[in-house]
Structure formats: C-alpha cells, structure tokens
C-alpha cells in the first residue's frame, strides 16, 4: 500500500511499508539527471572510440569484414545496452549516476531488476521524442515522482542516495557571544530539529549574501523571538535575526555538551 503525500514542488516522496513505517526518499530532478546523462554520454563516446581503435589495430589480422561486423554489434550494445546493463549489474546505477549519488529504484522502494532496467532504457526512444528528451523532460516535471516515460512504464524513480556533505564547521560559532537562554520565558529551549536547521544555515552563511542569510533567518527568528520575555530583546531578534539565531545556537550547544559531561 502506497501513500503519496508529495506536495507540488517537493523533491521528496514517501512510502508506507508493511511494517507501518513511513520512508522518505529524495528525488533527483531533471538537472542532476542531465548531469549524470552527460557523464555517461562522455564515457560512451570514449568507449566507442576505444572500440574503434582496437578494431582498427586488429583489422590486418582478421580482415575488414569481421572487424566491421563486430564494430556494428558493439556499437549497438553500447547504444541500447549501456544504461540497462549497468543498472542491472550495479543495482540501479550507471557510472554517471554513481558519480552524482543517484540510484534508480522501484517506486515501492526496492532494487530494480533486469527487466525494469531494460524497460526504462528502451523507452528512451519515447522520451527522446521529438528532440533531445523533450517528452521525457515534460513527463518528469509533471509527475509527482519526477519520472520520465521510461520510469512511468517500468515503475521506477531516480533518487538521490546521499546528501552532499555540508561544508564549513561549527568551531567558528565561538565568534558569536553566548545568548543567555534565561531570557526566554517558561524555560523555553528551541527543539533539536530547529537547532539543526540553524546549524545548516550557519554552515552555509558564507556561501550566501548576508541579506539573504538574514532573510532566511527571519523565518525562524520570528517565532523563537516571540518566546523572549523582554520587548527589547524581541526587537533585537527581529532586527538582527541571523545574529540572534547563531547566538542562541551557541548557547544551546554549550548547554547540551555540559549536560553530556555531567
């Protein structure tokens, strides 16, 4: 039984297992998939020339007819079989997908087999229509699981397997003064999930324009700021949202490491 709750513009899809657990999958969008396609295309072209080179070298020994025939057959296997065979052997990955951390899986959440791999790759001919995957692109932006035609028919979806490592560390958090948590009313403390969100923003702050950091921070700073007892502090949270959040984060983290040590 599948429960789809993906919202428009969401890159996630959810699946409820027989154990009554809801699993989350992060879908790969057309951009990343185009990247993987590019890598695979480059590899295919390289193999193509390698085959041509080797066969040309062999030609004096085997004769023109045999090498030409072998060349056509290998070119055919490369054109139609590259994706299907890799996705069968590597359980849903081609070299390009592996490089970018993508994997093809069944929409039921498990690994694909030979026929699914074959089906979704043969149907590239339908996705390609009328020019350069226009139909496939249209299909992938209009289905909730971002499936191209081949995926729809094979019942597969392409997911991002690993979250890219976040850059930047938390050590520079000490650049910010601790924010006295006692300023909050009723012993309020931001939840762990909220703190992680602040942490993510903190790690990314140098990649973004300062004004943008404040803009994003304001979304969180607003509800947290409301918990402050003091009106002046509330204004501070409103005016310097990122500064406020990072100071809260520092204090919260310091508090939890003390609790651990104790």
């Amino acid at each position: 039984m599948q429960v789809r709750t993906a919202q428009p513009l969401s890159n996630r899809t959810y699946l409820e297992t027989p154990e009554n657990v809801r699993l989350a999958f992060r879908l790969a969008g057309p951009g990343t998939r185009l990247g993987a396609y590019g890598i695979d295309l480059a590899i295919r072209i390289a193999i193509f020339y390698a085959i041509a080179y080797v066969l040309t070298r062999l030609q004096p020994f085997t004769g023109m007819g045999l090498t030409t025939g072998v060349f056509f057959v290998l070119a055919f296997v490369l054109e139609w079989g590259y994706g299907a065979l890799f996705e069968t052997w590597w359980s849903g990955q081609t070299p390009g997908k592996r490089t970018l951390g993508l994997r093809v899986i069944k929409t039921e959440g498990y690994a694909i087999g030979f026929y699914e791999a074959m089906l979704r790759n043969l149907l590239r001919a339908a996705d390609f229509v009328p020019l350069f995957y226009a139909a496939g692109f249209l299909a992938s932006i209009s289905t909730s699981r971002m499936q191209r035609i081949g995926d729809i028919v094979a019942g597969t979806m392409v997911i991002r397997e690993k979250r890219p490592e976040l850059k930047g560390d938390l050590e520079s958090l000490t650049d910010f003064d601790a924010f006295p948590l006692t300023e909050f009313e009723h012993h309020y403390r931001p939840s762990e999930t909220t703190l992680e969100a602040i942490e993510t923003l903190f790690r990314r702050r140098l990649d973004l324009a300062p004004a943008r950091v404040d803009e994003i921070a304001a979304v969180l700073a607003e509800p947290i700021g409301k918990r402050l007892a003091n009106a002046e502090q509330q204004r501070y949270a409103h005016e310097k949202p990122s500064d406020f959040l990072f100071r809260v984060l520092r204090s919260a983290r310091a508090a939890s490491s003390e609790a651990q040590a104790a």
Partner: protein
Amino acid sequence: MNKQKFLGERKPVWDRFETLVERASHPRTKLSGAEVSELSELFRALCYDLAQVRSHDWGSSIERYLNDLVVRGHSAFYGAKPSPRGGVLGFLAHGFPRLLRQNHRFFWAACALFAVPMAVSWSVVASDPSLAHRILPGSVLYTMEEMYSQELDEEGPMGRQRQDAAMAGFYVRHNTSIAFQCFALGFFLGLGTIYVLLSNGIQLGTVAGYLIAQGHGERFLSFVVSHSSFELTAIVVAGTAGLVLGHAIVAPGNRSRSEALRVRGLVAVKLALGAAAMLFVAATIEGFWSALPLPPMVKYSAAAILWIAVIGYLGFAGRALRERRS
C-alpha cells in the same frame, strides 16, 4: 530515555543490521537460515526505532540515518528480483513464444498493420512501377536497382567482399534499433508503433514490387526470402510489443493507467527482447547465407525450412511444458 542513552543502546544493533543487509543485498552471497531470521527480527526492531526517533525530538540527522537503513532493509526484504525463469535460454525456448501466443490478438493486429500495406503497395507498384517514385525517393530506388541488377558473386556493392560478418553486424544494429523504436513509440497510444509498421510495410512492398517490375524479381526474392522469415516476423513481434504498451494506456481496464502500464510494460519488454533475439538470427542468416551465390532453388528450399521453423517456434514452442505444468 534520552538521545545519548538510546544511541548507545541501539547503535550496536544498527551496525549488526547494516552488516547483514550489506551481505543480503550482495548478489553472490547467501545468508544462512539463522541469519535471515535474525535479519528479519532486526528489521522490525529498526522500524520501531525509526518510529521512536520520529516521536522524540532527536534531530533529523539520526532520523535520516535510520530512514536510510530501513530503506535498505526494505529493499533487501521485498525486492525479490524478477529474473527470467530458467535463464535466457529458458526464456527463448518457451517463455517468449508462450508470451507471444498469450497476446496473439495484438500479434495479428500488428501483422495486419504491416502485411496489408505491404501487399497493397507491392501489387500496385508491380503493375505500375512509376508509382514507386511517389513513395520512395529516386535515389533509394536507384540504389536498390543497382544492388539487385548484378549477380551475387560479382565484385561490387553486393559482392562477396563486403558480405558476411560486416553486413550481419550492420543488420543487427540497424534492424534491432528500428524494432526497439517501434516498441517504445507504442507509449504514445500505440500511434508511434502503428506508424512504424505502416511505413515499413509500404516501403518494403514498394521496393519488392518495383524490383520485380524491373525484372530483378528472382535475384531479389532469392536473396530476401530466407532471412525475411525471422526478420519480418520479428518486426511484427516488436509491433506487438508496442501495441501491448499502447493498449495499456488506451484501455487500462480495471487498473489505473500507471498500474496497467507496469503490468503490461513487463510483458511488452519481454516481447521486444524476443524480437531482438530473432533479429540477431535474421542478421546472421542475411550476412552469411542470403548472399551466397547459390541456385535460387536451393535458397527457396532453405527458406521454406526457415519459415516452417519460425512458425513452429512461435506457434508451438513451450506448449508441452504448459500442459505438463497445469
């Protein structure tokens, strides 16, 4: 229970689960019976852990970690791979012909879409060759005429030097690509498949009618009659696959369209792969046999055997097996 205590208690269990799942999803290892039951017990425990993590506020990194582990467990448990029973040979020996017979209505429809336009264009062009120029460009007709106006043992475009392996390889790539396209374009309500079948039928009929009218009939027929057994039938089989696919969209029946596509899509891709195998046989015959300079009677006799073989194969292979099983 706080997060640290929970992690300290459960982490060894998760690690054990990860090792087992790693081995379970590896294609060449097999878990022992005891390990399988251990894995299934751990899997249920992890599902419970994940639910617990979600009900507490322990942050999303631990939730993501557990989510990924449970996904892998889910995949290992429910992802039994549908591999062809009895391997590739078993599929070709009985699975494929049986599947084709189960879809015989689509086969006959594809056959009509291909054979009727071929017969019509053949007879029309044979009686009035000038019509051929309205169907095919002059250059194509000229090349065809050039090819079939010389004997097979002469040096030339059709001479022995360029035959055999090179041509077999060329036919594998060219014909199978057309067959796969014919199948895949069936997704568009079957219209793509119908177009490929009609246009190929018309073109082949035109070439045949034109060459016969020009007096190259025997050379042409004795050349194509052998491999056409597998080749033309395979094109029709690829068309069958495309129609099965299109039918799932046009008339999904009691299923949703996506559900129907997935069920019928599996059938269709098997038919397309069967067609590809037939085209490999056809290409081999075309490259190594059809071009041999032999008397037409020898060619016709061999062709008769090949046609009977194709009909016998598609019509009867795997029948006994089904009877025994039921």
